[in-house]
């Protein structure tokens, strides 16, 4: 994943070095081959919790059929999965489970946050729902919607495929595992609070009170 890990901004990260291999014709051809193989055989790990999981199942069923995108085998074991699709709202009780499943996935791995709940917490701005799983794990593609239509999820998968196609193995930072700061946090605490700020008047859904 080409994300710079935010938790490492204040830390000394070892191993980051200038790439000694500069991209050339051979590397781009290799990239093309490897990325083509990866993007067309993504095995999803469906971390389905709520309503989005039902739309995910509908996407996997015969009308929309994500098997045509290489996602023939839903890999419920994270050890054999490529894409972590978080479909549904994630309460705080489920957060350590999600983090553990993500950590159990081997590289190369990507993450699709399906639906508004997984992306931002949706209307559930309360004591129990994680305000976006990107406060816990790195996310590659966000698919908005409540729930997103199967076509929307497929578009998200296609965006991920485009992202994978743009990767290059000469990038040393690409496949680094996320590092966690103090308290096992993926982002600095101030950033989590900033991302979870209520949007508009989300406590009282009316302007008059």
């Amino acid at each position: 994943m080409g994300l710079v890990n935010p938790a490492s901004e204040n830390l000394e990260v070892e191993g980051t070095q200038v790439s000694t291999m500069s991209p050339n014709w051979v590397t781009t051809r290799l990239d093309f081959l490897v990325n083509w193989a990866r993007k067309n055989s993504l095995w999803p790990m469906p971390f389905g919790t709520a309503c989005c999981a039902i739309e995910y199942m509908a996407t996997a069923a015969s009308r929309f059929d994500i098997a045509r995108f290489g996602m023939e085998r839903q890999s419920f074991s994270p050890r054999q999965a490529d894409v972590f699709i978080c479909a549904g709202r994630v309460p705080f009780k489920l957060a350590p489970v999600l983090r553990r499943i993500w950590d159990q996935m081997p590289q190369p791995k990507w993450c699709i946050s399906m639906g508004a709940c997984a992306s931002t917490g949706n209307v559930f701005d309360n004591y129990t729902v994680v305000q976006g799983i990107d406060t816990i794990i790195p996310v590659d593609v966000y698919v908005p919607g409540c729930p997103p239509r199967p076509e929307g999820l497929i578009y998200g998968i296609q965006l991920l495929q485009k992202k994978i196609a743009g990767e290059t193995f000469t990038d040393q930072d690409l496949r680094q595992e996320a590092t966690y700061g103090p308290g096992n946090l993926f982002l600095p605490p101030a950033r989590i609070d900033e991302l979870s700020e209520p949007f508009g008047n989300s406590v009282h859904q009316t302007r008059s009170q």
Partner: protein
Amino acid sequence: MSAPVQAAAASPGGHYVPHAPQGAQPETVAALRAAFGDAIGRDVLVCGETIVYVARERAHEILAWLQTTPGQEFDYLTDITAVEYRDPELPIEVVYQLRSLARRADLRVKIALDKTQPLEVDTVWDLWKGCDWLEREVYDMFGIVFRGHPDLRRLLMWETYAEGHPLRKDFPLRGHFSRAEQTRQALAAQPEAHYSLEELSIADAYHELPADMRERLLKGERGTLT
């Protein structure tokens, strides 16, 4: 603020059409008063349903009487929940929705708990097994202890949840802690720590746990409260 429950009047849509013709239970109320006298508080008819307030001390007896007495036979427990009003002076009410399948009758029994006293009620687990998780949820959300419940742990929040009881009115919608703190606490809770002491004793693994996990389990685990 007026008393919490009154008969429905001056409703926006005009006249009320009762949902269940046998909603009101005047005979049951009369029989209760005859059998228990002072332990029965006021009774109200709201939206076609009868609500009876009972005293906490004899509540278990009254509910058992309602379940077993021929002519009452409230053999089905529909729901147990609690209500806290916005007016802080008003008591918290534990609400039992009872139903008699044979007589097609509904009854709502309420116990008003003064907030200055400890919030405790006797369990009805020996009467209706269906109260198990319902009482655990009321404990989790309101902090009301059900004396005699075999396994009164938190149900919906994790066992060592430290922020409080969410459905209380003094609990803010987003919780007491900041988002970062909530995330930190959530991630710090190891999934294995969500095994109860009972479960770990099965696996004989309790003694192999690190000391701090045992500490936390001891703090979070509830067990029988009598």
